[in-house]
């Protein structure tokens, strides 16, 4: 530790809580070896100790630990510090921690500046000498800057207690129910005509093999019946305005041509439709069955309401139809061909995005023959075949109606593949083993799984793998090269042949089977980029919504008050999705129950004496926080509306606008310090 007498550096104009000289305390954190291994922390502390105004300069193992924070607090009291600088990790991680420590030490928390010498230095540089030089420059910039800090106060804005949940899959359903049960009003918006998401299409769930419908449908009905949940299906978010605590969201409700409140789901209209036969592919059964232009998405759909497909219905398309459905509905009068798209505006304080994933399109890997050979199916198609409520009533059959006697599952289709998606979709190993067990149970077929690695890390999952082995499912390790119907031997006639290098046996094999199941991976939704823009989020390069911190804030986003849950954040199984949904709901509750949002005091303000009244700042503010006071001929900033971007500050030709925490003089001093 070294001390140099604070010379004050001429800052009498600072309205600090302390009077007199600036007394800066500087702390450099080793972060174990994270910083200390690359940056010479003692040298940095010594250097900063020689700078004017620094009365105390220390290096310490872990500044964010309790003793580290205590150190700051006791130093503030003992050494009468009135400014604190900590060189450690990113301010996005621990700025709040240290500000709180400074405040506990009796100082205004904004007399603090943080220096990022971990993410921006020790983790990205190797050369110890140059990294240390850089750390000194960074520290010096902060020391120069902190002298010019002001005593500031955060402002409190009340929070709107209602919540919007986007996406009605298992994550969205769980989040909505949790919030609803806590007494909060929830708007649940789902794009499809029914909630339920992918889970509604599943037969059983791994590793317990309990029936998916039995655990999901009660939750779906609970959503419908819940007094605190407003469910809007067949609807999408069109616009999002505002900020944490005060979002205004516009929802686009597409016309179903059926009045939801009047329809009882009797399906009389479906029977009476002018189309005698169901002839249009049914999305819920992934095209494996057919439906009519008026239909219910699936028997357990919530809401239990039919809808009319405008692309298929004669009346909607041409206006010329006998409208037998209207007759069938009779005096209920639930069918309404005059329905129009509706825009509804709601006000919410917090938003949970649970928009899910889409499945990889197996046609992108042509060598597996999906779309070419009819008996190559995706895992979701098999899932529909195996479900008792599915198109074949639970019978696994080939396209010609016969039963398969052999089957091969190909794993990692569109996952862990540099040509398509590099990530692991996490669920396909387990999902395939579950389907393989069901396949065997239903058909007594010989089932072989072609895998690269079996990933079964979840609770009960390794045991499930053992069970698969015990039940006689064969595993061949190797990425399948191709699927062909070109028979080279009599036993291959009429079959699909899998060519694979068996990496455990060490040679290339040809294995003939009747049916091939492709374990397709998960991908971000096709419109994830549009959604990201709508909600002002960040995405990973792959297109998954980016969490604020991979470990410490896994369901938060960079936009305050917007949380993410389920597969829109990355591939995950049902338990993980539900855990995230619960976490997101808890985060919302934490904000709502506090009742107010504390806003960073980084707003802009006008030095009236310098304002020339030129009005050039007025059109720059996207929040219309700046107005013009005609009586005095000066601009005025409404700090409640200001979000603190600082665009007006940079544009003022008279230098009449300042920004708290980012004042011109602070930044100029930072530039000076960083180039010392």
């Amino acid at each position: 530790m070294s001390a140099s007498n604070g010379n004050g550096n001429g800052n009498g104009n600072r309205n600090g809580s302390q009077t007199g000289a600036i007394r800066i305390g500087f702390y450099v954190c080793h972060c174990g070896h994270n910083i200390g291994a690359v940056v010479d922390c003692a040298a940095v502390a010594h250097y900063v100790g020689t700078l004017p105004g620094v009365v105390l300069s220390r290096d310490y193992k872990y500044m964010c630990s309790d003793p580290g924070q205590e150190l700051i607090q006791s130093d503030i009291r003992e050494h009468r510090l009135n400014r604190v600088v900590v060189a450690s990790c990113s301010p996005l991680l621990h700025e709040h921690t240290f500000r709180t420590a400074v405040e506990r030490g009796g100082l205004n928390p904004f007399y603090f500046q943080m220096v990022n010498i971990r993410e921006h230095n020790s983790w990205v540089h190797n050369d110890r000498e140059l990294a240390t030089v850089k750390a000194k420059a960074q520290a010096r910039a902060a020391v120069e800057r902190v002298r010019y800090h002001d005593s500031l106060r955060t402002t409190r804005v009340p929070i709107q207690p209602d919540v919007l949940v986007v996406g009605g899959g298992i994550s969205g359903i769980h989040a909505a129910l949790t919030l609803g049960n806590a007494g909060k009003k929830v708007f649940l918006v789902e794009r499809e005509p029914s909630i339920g998401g992918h889970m509604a299409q599943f037969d059983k769930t791994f590793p317990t093999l309990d029936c998916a419908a039995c655990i999901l449908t009660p939750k779906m009905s609970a959503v419908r019946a819940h007094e605190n949940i407003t469910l809007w299906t067949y609807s999408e978010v069109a616009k999002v305005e505002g900020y944490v605590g005060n979002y205004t969201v516009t929802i686009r409700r597409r016309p179903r041509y059926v009045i939801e409140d009047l329809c009882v789901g009797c399906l009389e209209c479906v029977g009476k439709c002018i189309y005698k036969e169901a002839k249009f592919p049914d999305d819920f059964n992934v095209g494996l069955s057919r439906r009519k232009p008026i239909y219910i998405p699936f028997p357990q759909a919530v809401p239990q309401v039919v809808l009319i497909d405008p692309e298929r219905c004669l009346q909607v398309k041409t206006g010329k139809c006998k409208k037998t459905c209207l007759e069938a509905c009779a005096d209920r009068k639930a069918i309404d061909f005059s329905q129009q798209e509706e825009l509804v505006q709601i006000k919410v304080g917090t938003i949970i995005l649970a928009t899910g994933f889409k499945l990889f399109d197996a046609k992108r890997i042509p060598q597996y023959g999906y779309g070419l050979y009819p008996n190559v199916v995706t895992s979701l198609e098999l899932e529909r075949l195996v479900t008792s409520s599915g198109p074949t009533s639970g019978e696994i059959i080939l396209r010609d109606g016969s039963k398969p006697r052999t089957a091969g599952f190909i794993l990692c289709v569109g996952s862990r593949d540099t040509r398509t998606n590099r990530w692991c979709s996490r669920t396909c190993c387990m999902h395939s083993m579950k389907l393989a067990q069901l396949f065997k149970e239903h058909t007594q077929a010989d089932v072989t799984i072609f895998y690269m690695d079996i990933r079964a890390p979840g609770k009960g999952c390794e045991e499930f793998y053992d069970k698969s082995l015990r039940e006689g499912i064969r595993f061949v390790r190797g990425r399948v090269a191709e699927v062909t119907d070109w028979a080279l031997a009599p036993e291959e006639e009429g079959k699909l042949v899998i060519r694979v290098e068996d990496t455990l046996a060490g040679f290339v094999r040809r294995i003939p089977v009747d049916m091939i199941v492709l374990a397709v991976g998960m991908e971000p939704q096709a419109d994830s980029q549009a959604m990201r823009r709508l909600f002002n989020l960040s995405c990973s390069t792959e297109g998954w919504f980016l969490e604020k911190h991979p470990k410490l804030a896994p369901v938060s986003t960079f936009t305050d008050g917007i949380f993410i849950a389920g597969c829109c954040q990355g591939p995950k199984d049902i338990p993980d999705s539900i855990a995230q949904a619960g976490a997101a709901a808890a985060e919302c509750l934490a904000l709502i129950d506090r009742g107010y949002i504390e806003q960073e005091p980084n707003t802009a303000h006008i030095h009236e004496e310098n304002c020339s009244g030129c009005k050039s700042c007025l059109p720059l503010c996207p929040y219309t926080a700046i107005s013009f006071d005609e009586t005095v001929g000066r601009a005025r900033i409404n700090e409640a509306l200001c979000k603190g971007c600082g665009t007006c500050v940079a544009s003022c030709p008279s230098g009449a606008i300042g920004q708290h925490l980012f004042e011109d003089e602070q930044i100029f001093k930072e530039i000076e310090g960083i180039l010392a």
Partner: protein
Amino acid sequence: MNPGTESIYSPAHGWQPRLVAFFCNWCTYTAADLAGVSRLKYAPNIRVIRLMCSGRVDPQFILEAFARGADGVLIGGCHPGDCHYVEGNYKALRRFQLLGRLLRDLGIEEQRVRLEWISASEGERVRLVVNEMVEQLRALGPLNLPEKMEAWDREMTALEETVHAEALAAV
């Protein structure tokens, strides 16, 4: 440079380009954090100043950086359409284009200032841009604006003296 304090560079380093960066809090600063978390390695010549938005970058900051001895300035903001503050990055772009002309007139090469859109997930891009720019600055050599400014000052004083002397002589 502040008189009275030692320079933190030792002559042993030789000349090192100095790159000052202004990164917006939401995209590029976060991307640089991600580069750190991912342990991507890049040149230690960059020093980052965090601002809430690239729209806060006053052209004066860039000039000040050059005047204080920077060899290059990098501005990082969110991609067009992604600004956390709706359109601050567009304002940054407009100012940047205007400033470019001024810098040309001052004899500061175009490659010394760069505006980049780097989103929060593009840690790799931070590494790429920083390394590329530091290499360019090495190729360009030192800008030495502080020394140049002193030289210009001396020139001006000399000119003033000459004019003054001539005026005296004429009397």
